């Protein structure tokens, strides 16, 4: 379980202190997937940096399965909008990077092969990132995260740089793999559609400084042909209304 209590983050800038996140309180059950949605600059990425151990100066407490966030002992998969691949490593080396850093064995075992096949990148192992399309690069980043069997998966607008068709493909592919492994996931997005498609619960954040305005149960989650249903339309109207109020 991820437990966030009274999380506040302040940034030092030339203009003095800026509050990025203000008293965030939320518990996320293990194996669940939450989407966080909010306007630009509301501190969504800051929240992920706290959870991934990149940002260590904050107020309040954040625990993963009862222990404070520490990327050295916990396995945290971080998937970023710009994919976060190392350009000097080929696909194979990039997907194995998580295991390498964790000092696990880095040969292709059945599980990594399975993930690479699922994501359709098993034939691209010798390629370098610059030789891949955006969608393929994001597949590599997802493979890297799943292959190390993370305790927590953090996704920061991972599909927003992709074109609309690739984006929907990737969303479906991701959801498919996620369902089979049920990793605790926090998915940050600025798209109402994405929040509805991928979140069992949807957390709506306010304009800066980021506060939780509402945590919405998402009845649309895992419905077939979601985007053609009335529930989808009703929920997106509801979400947009909450967002507009903030």
């Amino acid at each position: 379980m991820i437990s966030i209590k009274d999380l506040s983050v302040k940034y030092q800038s030339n203009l003095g202190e800026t509050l990025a996140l203000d008293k965030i309180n939320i518990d996320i059950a293990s194996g669940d997937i939450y989407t966080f949605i909010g306007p630009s600059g509301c501190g969504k990425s800051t929240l992920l940096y706290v959870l991934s151990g990149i940002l260590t100066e904050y107020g309040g407490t954040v625990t993963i399965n009862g222990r404070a966030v520490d990327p050295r002992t916990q396995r945290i998969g971080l998937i970023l909008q710009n994919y976060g691949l190392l350009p000097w490593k080929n696909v194979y080396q990039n997907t194995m990077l998580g295991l390498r850093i964790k000092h696990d064995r880095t040969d292709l075992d059945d599980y990594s092969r399975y993930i690479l096949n699922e994501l359709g990148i098993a034939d691209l192992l010798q390629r370098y990132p610059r030789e891949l399309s955006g969608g393929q690069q994001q597949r590599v980043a997802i493979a890297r995260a799943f292959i190390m069997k993370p305790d927590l998966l953090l996704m920061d607008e991972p599909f927003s740089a992709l074109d609309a068709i690739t984006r929907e493909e990737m969303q479906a592919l991701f959801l498919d793999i996620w369902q089979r492994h049920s990793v605790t996931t926090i998915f940050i997005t600025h798209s109402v559609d994405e929040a509805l498609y991928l979140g069992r619960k949807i957390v709506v954040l306010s304009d800066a400084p980021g506060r939780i305005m509402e945590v919405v149960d998402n009845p649309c989650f895992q419905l077939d042909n979601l985007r053609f249903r009335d529930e989808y339309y009703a929920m997106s109207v509801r979400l947009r209304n909450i967002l507009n109020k903030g």
Partner: protein
Amino acid sequence: MIPVQTKKWQGALYSALVVLLTWWLVAWLAGLPIIPSPVAVFHNIIDIFRPRMEIHVWYSLLRISAGIVISLLIGVPLGFLMGYFDRVDRLFSPLVYFTYPVPKLALLPVVMLIFGLGESSKLIMIVLIVIFQIIISARDAVKGIPQEIYRSLQSLGASRFQMLKEIIIPASASEVLTSTRLALGTAISILFFTETFGTEYGMGYFIMDSWMRVNYLDMYAGIVVLSFMGFCLFTVIDLIENRLSSWR
């Protein structure tokens, strides 16, 4: 890859031909003993290389290679530290900027006074020439790595050493080599200069000695071999760089 390499070799061959033709033309027009024809010079190289010249080539090659290796060993870690830690940068950057433009050749008498006429002062001169470019390019390469690149490794709990190995070294290798290559030309001319003092070995000595003895054929042979040595060093660095930056 193969067509590009072949093109490069064709280019090298072409420029060698142009230089040789011009040289031959000038020699033929001037008709002076101070400008011998390239044919005679190459003939002379074949005659004297094994008995008289080889040892000088080795000395020069060793000095310049040692100078480059020492500069890399000191310059790269220092540049990395300056690029990664702002405090180290603030401490050393003014020092580097202040000493970089000092004409190093002017320091030769001082270096020779302190370190003597032997090998160490020659090495120090080469290091003084090469190291600044290496420090600055290593620093700038590290500073140029976007923060996001570090993020995914940080979230994996990577240690500083792992950051160095997985990110900093591969990201900066090709910039460092480029600056080494740039500095190499200057380093060879400095090498030549330092070898005209206090030594009886090295291409600098060989060329100046031939000149003193008014043996122009030997002198030109020395110049040609020294240029070829430089060409080989450039090529070696090129090959290493191609290998390291195949991902670009």
